[in-house]
C-alpha cells in the first residue's frame, strides 16, 4: 500500500488554496512538484499521509477546491 496520497489539481492556484485549507485544519500537507509520471504539468501537487485522505477530501470539497486526480505515492516515486 502507498504511504502517501497526492492530490493533483488543474492549477497551482487550486493546489496552494488546498494546502492553505488543510493547514488551517491542522492537516500536514506538503506542496511539491508534480511527479513526472503522474502529469506533465509544471505546477505543484499536494501530498498527505494516507490516513488523512477522507478528511482532506472533505475539507477540499467544502472549500470549493477542484481536485483533478488522486494518486497513491510511494516514497521512491517522489
Amino acid at each position, binding site marked *: 500500500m502507498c504511504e502517501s496520497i497526492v492530490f493533483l489539481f488543474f492549477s*497551482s*492556484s487550486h493546489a496552494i*488554496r488546498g494546502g492553505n485549507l488543510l493547514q488551517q485544519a491542522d492537516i500536514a500537507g506538503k506542496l511539491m512538484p508534480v511527479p513526472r509520471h503522474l502529469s506533465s504539468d*509544471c*505546477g505543484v501537487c499536494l501530498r498527505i499521509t494516507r490516513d488523512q485522505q477522507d478528511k482532506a477530501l472533505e475539507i477540499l470539497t467544502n472549500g*470549493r477546491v477542484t481536485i483533478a486526480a488522486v494518486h497513491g505515492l510511494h516514497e521512491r516515486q517522489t
Partner: protein
Amino acid sequence: MIYLDNASTSWPKPPGVSEAMVDFLNQTGANPGRGGHRLAIEAGRTVDTARQVVAELFNAADPLRVTFGHNVTAALNFALHGLLKPGDHVITSSIEHNSMMRPLRELESRGVRVTVVACHVDGTLDPQKIEDEIRAETALVALNHASNVMGTILPVAEVGEVTRRRGIPLLVDAATTAGAMPIDVEEMKIDLLAFTGHKGLGGPTGTGGLIIGEQINHETIRPLIQGGTGSYSEQERQPAWLPDALESGTLNVVGLAGLTAAVKWIRNEGLVAIRKKLLSNRTRLTEGLQAIRGITIHGSRQPEMQTTPIAFSISSLSPSEAGCKLDDQFGILCRVGLHCSPAAHKTIQTFPVGTLRFAPGLFTSDDEIETTLSAVRQLVGGE
C-alpha cells in the same frame, strides 16, 4: 503639500504596505505557478492570501473566483468583452467612467446594443429606470457603484434585486467605493465585481481584479487574453477553470503582497468606521466650500448618497487655472478637468469644461481640510 487626489490613487498607503512589498521582493520574489520549488510555492501562497482577504472583504464565497489583473479597467474589459456578443443588449448609467463606456462603445460598434439610463443632474438614479429598459435580449446590467467625479452612489443593491429576479447578471465597477464603504456581493446581489487595488483599498498601482459570483457560469466569459498560466501546459488552448482562464501571464505578485497588507489594515480599522471618517472629511470640506461665494458643488446634497470625491466649480476661475494655482501657491494637489468621465460631466452639466475635484483620504487631517478651505477662500478672493 496637501494631497487631495485620492480618487486617482490613494496616498499615502496604509502602514505595512510598502514593507510587505519590500519583504516579498527580498525574501520570496519567485513566480507563482511556474515551478514547484519552495519560493514558487511561497509566491503562490502570497497570491492565495490576497485572494482570501479580498474575498472576505467583499463577502465572496470562493477565493478562487477572485481573479487578479492590472486594475479595474482590465477587469471591466474582461467582463464586458468576455460576456457580451453582437445582438446582446446591455444597460448602463449616464455617470460611468470611460473604463466602462469605452469598451461599451467599442462593443456597440460590433453590434451590441447599449442603453444609457439617464441619471438626475445630481447623479442620482431611480432604479426603476433600469428595470424599465430590460428587454428579452438584455444580457447584462453594468453600473459603477459611485461616480469618480462627484461621488454620487448608485442604488446598486436595489438594482441587484431587480437583476437577480430577472435572471440578468449585474456587473459593478467598485473603483470609487472598494475600501471606502462596505460592499457585500451576496447581500447586494452583485454577480461580477470589478475592483482596483490602488484607490480606496490602499494597495499599490498595478493591482485589481474581477470577482465572479457563483451564479455566473465562468465558462461563458470568453478570456480576453490567452497565454501561459502554469497549468494545462500540455495544451495550447486556454484552460477553462478559474482563476487561470482570466489570469494569463505573470501576476503583479509584489503588488498583491502590498494589497494584502492594505486590505488587512482596512479589515482591522473596519469599513463602517472608515466610511464614517471619510464622510466626516467630505462633509467638512463640502460645507466649507459651500460657504464660499462663487463656488458650486455638484452632486447630491444628501451625505448618505455620496462617497469621497467632491466636484466643484469656481465662477471666477477655470478648473485648470484654479488647480494650477492651488498647487503652485498653496501646495494643494487635486485633479481638474473631465476625470476620464465625459458622461458624468454631461450629466451634471459641466461638460466640456469639467470641474475641480477634491478627494480627501483616510489620512487627510482636520488641519489639512481647514488649510484647504482657507486656500480656496484666498483663491476666490473672499479672504
